[in-house]
C-alpha cells in the first residue's frame, strides 16, 4: 500500500512535469476499490482503462490508484488527482459516492463519473450496469443444475445493487426449479480472499452445490474447485481460468465502450452529467461462455433467456411477484420501474432470512 502510494506519487509528479509539454492531452483518472489483479471487478475496470489508452493513444494520459478504501481516504486520493490536472475521473465503487460529490464541488471544471451510485451534480454523472439481467441467466442455470436444491450466495454489503442480484437470481432459479432454496452469507467486504473462501466452504458444507458470489476475488472459485462437484459463476470478470468446472458461466462487465464514449465527449466538449444504466442489450453486461459442464438443453434455455432479456421481450422483474412478507409488489404482467429497482431494499417472496439494516 505504502509502496503503491509512493509509486503513484512519483507518477503524478512526472505527470505534472510533462503537463507543460503536452497541454492538449486529456488526462483521465481512475479510482479502484481493489488491486487491478483481483481477477474480477477492478480487473475489468482496468481493462477498460487500457482500452481507452489504446483507442486514443497519445491524445490521452491515464492515471489510477488501486485499493483505495471507501471513505475519507478516497476524498484525499480524488483531491490529489484533481489537483494534478485530471480532466475526467472515474470512481468505480458504490462507497465513493459521497467523497466524489464532495470533491466535485471543489473542482467544478473537472468531470466525475461515479459507478453504481445515485447522487449526481452538474459535473458528476453516474453509470452502472444492469447486472441483475445477468443474474437472471445465472439463476436459471443454478436452478436447473442444483441436485441438492440448495444454492449458496456470498453477498457483500446490503445495498440495492446486491439485493437486486439476489432477488433476480432467486426468481429465475425458482421458475426453473420450484424446490430451490437460497442460503445467503453477508461477508461485509468486497474483497477479502480468506473470508470469501471460508464463506464458500461454509455454504458447501451446508449442502449448497451451486455458489453465486457478489464479492470480487476468485477465492470462492478456488474453494469450490477444492471441494469438487460444485458449480460457480465468474463475477464481474470471466474467471475463465476456473472453467469448465467449477466456473460454468459468468457475468462480465464490459466498461470499455462507455469509457471511450465518455472520454471522447470530454475531448469534444460535449460531456454532460447524466445517468447511464445499460444491460445485456447495450452490451455493458456480457454472459461468459457457458461451459460444457452444462447440459445442451439447459445451455439452450439460458441463451434463449439471455436473448429475450437483450431484446426487451423479458424483464427479469415481471409480475406476479410478492415481497417477502407476502404483500403484493407487482401484479400479473406488471414490470418493475427503475426507481424501485434503484432503491430496492426488500427480498421477494420465498427468500428466507433478513437483510441486515
Amino acid at each position, binding site marked *: 500500500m505504502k509502496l503503491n502510494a509512493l509509486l503513484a506519487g512519483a507518477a503524478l509528479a512526472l505527470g505534472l512535469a510533462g503537463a507543460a509539454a503536452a497541454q492538449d492531452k486529456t488526462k483521465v483518472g481512475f479510482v479502484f476499490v481493489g488491486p487491478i489483479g483481483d481477477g474480477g471487478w477492478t480487473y475489468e475496470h482496468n481493462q477498460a482503462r487500457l482500452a481507452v489508452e489504446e483507442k486514443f493513444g497519445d491524445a490521452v494520459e491515464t492515471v489510477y490508484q488501486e485499493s483505495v478504501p471507501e471513505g475519507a481516504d478516497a476524498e484525499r486520493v480524488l483531491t490529489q488527482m484533481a489537483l494534478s490536472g485530471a480532466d475526467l475521473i472515474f470512481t468505480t465503487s458504490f462507497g465513493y459516492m459521497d467523497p466524489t460529490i464532495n470533491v466535485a464541488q471543489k473542482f467544478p471544471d473537472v468531470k466525475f463519473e461515479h459507478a453504481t451510485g445515485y447522487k449526481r451534480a452538474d459535473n458528476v454523472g453516474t453509470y452502472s450496469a444492469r447486472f441483475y439481467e445477468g443474474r437472471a441467466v445465472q439463476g436459471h442455470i443454478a436452478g436447473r443444475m442444483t441436485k441438492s436444491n440448495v444454492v449458496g450466495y456470498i453477498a457483500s454489503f446490503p445495498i440495492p445493487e446486491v439485493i437486486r442480484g439476489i432477488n433476480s437470481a432467486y426468481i429465475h432459479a425458482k421458475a426453473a426449479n420450484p424446490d430451490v432454496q437460497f442460503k445467503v452469507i453477508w461477508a461485509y467486504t468486497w474483497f477479502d480472499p480468506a473470508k470469501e*473462501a471460508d464463506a464458500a466452504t*461454509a455454504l458447501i*458444507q451446508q449442502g449448497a452445490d451451486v455458489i453465486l458470489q457478489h464479492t470480487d476475488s476468485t477465492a470462492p472459485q478456488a474453494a469450490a474447485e477444492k471441494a469438487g462437484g460444485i458449480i460457480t459463476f465468474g463475477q464481474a470478470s470471466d474467471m475463465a481460468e476456473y472453467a469448465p468446472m467449477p466456473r460454468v458461466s459468468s457475468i462480465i462487465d464490459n466498461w470499455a465502450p462507455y469509457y471511450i464514449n465518455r472520454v471522447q465527449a470530454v475531448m469534444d466538449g460535449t460531456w454532460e452529467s447524466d445517468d447511464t444504466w445499460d444491460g445485456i442489450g447495450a452490451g455493458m453486461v456480457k454472459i461468459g461462455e457457458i461451459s460444457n459442464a452444462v447440459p445442451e438443453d439447459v445451455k439452450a434455455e439460458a441463451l434463449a433467456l439471455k436473448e429475450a432479456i437483450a431484446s426487451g421481450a423479458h424483464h427479469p422483474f415481471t409480475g406476479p411477484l410478492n415481497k417477502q412478507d407476502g404483500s403484493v409488489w407487482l401484479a400479473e404482467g406488471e414490470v418493475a420501474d427503475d426507481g424501485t429497482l434503484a432503491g430496492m431494499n426488500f427480498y421477494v417472496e420465498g427468500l428466507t432470512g433478513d437483510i441486515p439494516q
Partner: protein
Amino acid sequence: MDLSAIDPVVLIASLMVAATPILLAAIGELVVEKSGVLNLGVEGMMITGAICGFAIAVETGSPTFGFLAAMVGGAALSLIFGVLTQVLMSNQVATGLALTLFGLGLSALIGQGYVGLKPPATGQLDLGPLSDIPVLGRILFSHDLVVYVSLALIVGVWAGLKYTRAGLILRAVGENHEAAHALGYKVVRIRLMAIAFGGACAGLGGAYLSLIRVPQWTEGMTAGAGWIALAIVVFASWKPVRVLLGAYLFGGVTVLQLNLQAAGLAVPVEVLSMSPYLITILVLVIMSADRGRAALSAPASLGKSFHASS
C-alpha cells in the same frame, strides 16, 4: 433457521484449517517472547511467507518447496528485525511495527507477477484406514501435513521449554538476561535463533493461507491474522497448550459465524461478524483477571534491550 444443516464434525475439521495459520504464527511468537524479545512484525512475516511460498510453489510445481521457501522467507525477514534490535539495539516495538509495514510492501512488490495464478494442489496426507473411522477419522485423520506439523510444534515447544536444557536456557535468557549472561550464555545469539524460529513459523502460517486455505495470492491477504496471533500469545499467558486453545477458539468462532449465517440464525449479521473478536477479547480479559498470575507468567525481560556492557 435450520441448525441441523451444520454438521459438527465437518465444522470442527474446518475450524482446524481456519485456525492453523494463526496457530503457527502464535507458537513461533511464543518462543520469541519466551526469549525476552517482543516482535510486533508477525503480520509482515506472515504475508512475506505467503508470497515466498506461493511464488516458489508455482515456479517449482511443488508445494513442499513452497512451504520451505516460506519458512526461509519469514526467517530472513525476521533476522532484519533481529540484527536491528539485538545487534544495533533499536527499539523493539518501533522496529516490529516497521517490519509489518515493510513486509506488506515487499510482498506486494514480489507478488506483482503472481496475481490470478493457481498454486499446485497440496494433497491430503493419506492415513489409510485411520481416516475411515467415523467422526474421529474426519476430525483427526483427514488433514494435510501442515496441520499435523502445527500440532507437533505445539507439543514440541511445550516439551522443549519444560523438559530440555535448551528450553531452560531460553527461558533463563527471557527471564533475566544479565544473569544468563553471567552464567556464560550467549544472550544475543540465543535470541537471534529464537527470532528466526518465530519468523519461520509465521512464514509457514502465511504460506498455509496462500497455498491451502484460499488458495491463491492476493495483496494484503493475511488481513490482520498476525495481530490476532500476537493477542493469542498474551491471552495464552505464554503457555503453548493455551495457544492451541486460543487459536482454535478464534478459528472456531470465525467458521461458526459463517455457518450460522448460512443456516439463517435470527441474530443480526453485524453481531455475528464481530463475534470472533469479541469472544477472543472476552476470554482474554477473563483469563488475565487474576493480575498477579498473569504478570508472573510474562517473561521478566520481555522487550528489554541487552548489551554485554550494561
